[in-house]
């Protein structure tokens, strides 16, 4: 199993542009999550999904959108990127039990 994979690893985005961060898991986990990590701030939950077709907002959803058309994929869409969205983005998945499995992250710079 590849686990949780994320693309791209790094990206530089211009202010006002849009992009999609990809997340795929091959463990057949129902639960998936998107976090952002800023220096010294821990991880903040952006959106989460409890299964295909079901998504909900986390703590910091403004400026982001998600979809979950399949169990495997949970893309995160940034619309009209702002410098405040410069961060490291982690996708995670979870089976019915409690442990979350994180992907390697996407380092995004908005400039």
């Amino acid at each position: 199993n590849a686990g949780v994979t994320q693309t791209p690893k790094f990206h530089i985005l211009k202010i006002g542009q849009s992009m999609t961060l990809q997340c795929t898991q091959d463990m057949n986990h129902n639960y998936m999550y998107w976090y952002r990590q800023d220096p010294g701030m821990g991880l903040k939950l952006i959106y989460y999904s409890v299964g295909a077709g079901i998504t909900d907002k986390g703590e910091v959803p403004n400026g982001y959108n998600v979809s979950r058309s399949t169990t495997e994929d949970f893309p995160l869409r940034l619309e009209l990127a702002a410098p405040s969205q410069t961060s490291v983005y982690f996708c995670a998945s979870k089976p019915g039990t409690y442990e979350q499995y994180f992907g390697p992250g996407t380092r995004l710079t908005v400039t």
Partner: protein
Amino acid sequence: GQQVMQIPQYQHVQEGEDFTTYCNSSTTLSNIQWYKQRPGGHPVFLIQLVKSGEVKKQKRLTFQFGEAKKNSSLHITATQTTDVGTYFCAGSANAGGTSYGKLTFGQGTILTVHP
């Protein structure tokens, strides 16, 4: 909303010294998890505590969950250079229903171990 505070933010130790990080929640938790993130890496699950007053050990690591289920600690005995990284606590609160596994993370403690 729920807040999880973690102290200290940084800790520098000499190899062989002990290390402790503390986690406090503004609300009662249903469970607390601990994750380790190596520099440049992603968080990796260490353990989950569920019961009031629970203590769990993993080799040199000891995890505690407070009696009121609002605080937790991670203690590392005789640190090694392989222990370097950021240690996060993450709490989950049911609030009368299922939390869907949502976690509120502390800010993390960055551990540096000097050989």
